[in-house]
């Protein structure tokens, strides 16, 4: 166990990187998911098609392949490393790839939440002269949000775990850092145990927060 304390700064830095990528992917993924969900429900057909293609592509291929493609594949045909800098581009690719992947799943969660709101709510809003946009914003989304919380939290937890797939594209998050430490100290048992525990704590905090949020929102009914 001593090795862990000696290598703690390195592990901690990896952990912080995991948290950072998780936060970015969750925030960006949610924004992308909201936009894609609204596009999927739009009247304008090309918007629906575009969104459907996006969701199907990212759900239909492994995240690891997507990350390799964006981080290593694209720079082979585009001067991305020059534009972003060779140090920065892999980080950008990791964050964007992760966010796009999570966004595809979040799209479906948000879409299902919106469709789950009773049609009568749309009609009532229309009957007082609200436009589609106003109805979506003031009536439908606030109600849809409550029913989205459980599946969204599930997806956020998944996102935290998915950041471990950034290790193969050489981003020094928690798994990558652990591998480096182990390659020097051969402390695989204790190291992976600690890594698992760290993921667990983060995800546990997320699910507890969600349970709290759900209880809070229950106060004003439905």
């Amino acid at each position, binding site marked *: 166990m001593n090795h862990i304390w000696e290598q703690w700064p390195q592990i901690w830095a990896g952990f912080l990187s995991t948290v950072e990528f998780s936060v970015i992917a969750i925030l960006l993924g949610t924004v992308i998911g909201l936009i894609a969900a609204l596009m999927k429900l739009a009247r304008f057909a090309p918007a629906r098609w575009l969104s459907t293609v996006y969701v199907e592509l990212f759900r239909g291929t492994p995240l690891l392949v997507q990350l390799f493609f964006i981080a290593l594949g694209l720079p082979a045909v585009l001067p991305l490393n020059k534009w972003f800098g060779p140090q920065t581009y892999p980080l950008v690719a990791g964050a964007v790839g992760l966010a796009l992947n999570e966004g595809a799943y979040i799209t479906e969660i948000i879409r299902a939440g919106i469709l789950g709101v009773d049609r009568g709510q749309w009609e009532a809003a229309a009957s007082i002269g609200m436009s589609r946009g106003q109805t979506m914003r003031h009536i439908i989304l606030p109600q849809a949000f409550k029913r989205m919380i459980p599946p969204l939290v599930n997806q956020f937890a998944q996102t935290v775990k998915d950041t471990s797939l950034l290790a193969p594209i050489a981003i020094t998050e928690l798994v990558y850092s652990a591998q480096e430490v182990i390659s020097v100290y051969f402390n695989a048992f204790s190291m992976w145990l600690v890594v698992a525990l760290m993921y667990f704590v983060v995800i546990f905090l997320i699910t507890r927060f969600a349970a709290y949020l759900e209880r809070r929102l229950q106060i*004003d009914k439905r």
Partner: protein
Amino acid sequence: MISVENLHKSFGRLEVLKGVTTHIDPQEVVVVIGPSGSGKSTFLRCLNGLETVTSGRIVVDGVELTDPKVNITKLRQRVGMVFQRFNLFHHLTVLDNITIGPRKVLKLSREESESRAFTLLEKVGLRDKANSYPDELSGGQQQRVAIARALAMKPSVMLFDEPTSALDPEMVGEVLQVMKDLAREGMTMVVVTHEMGFAREVGDRVLFMDGGVIVEEGKPQDLFSNPKEERTQAFLSKIL
């Protein structure tokens, strides 16, 4: 106020309205009755564009609703609607349910919207429920809030789609009372209902619909006591 000419409405291959023509005057209270599936609710929903008509012409308050260039959203501000299942906004308080239209659609200030809302809540007898959520109210109370929500837009016509059908019997009276008050104040109303007592008492005219057409219409006392059409007689004998 409302004129409907040769209105047809189909859902896929099912033709629900097969040529409805009628005219509703300002301040008139028209009650629409008929068996279920007769098209009476669909007819009502066509009047504020919740259903798009297949063919025919509807003019409401001088605006031709069936003209594709007409802004239906704008027109709906002047046509209030009350639904069978209330359809209050579950995430908003009673007060916010009533003020959201004036604030977001009419762009009135919060103060003005709220003073309007409190006046209406007073009228429907629910001032003390302003800060409750819809799901904390009884069905009758919810429906009265729904009426207040529609009235907050100061509509020139009110449409009622079976407003008491989802209520427990003891709550029907309180909702009908609000509607009667409204009729006496001179509101133009089109009411789809099974409440024959209401039709007799406040209806200026009754439309009997069956099979997607208006079979018979007339003053309540004439239509109820002396129906001319066989179908009207058969329907009334079953429900009266």
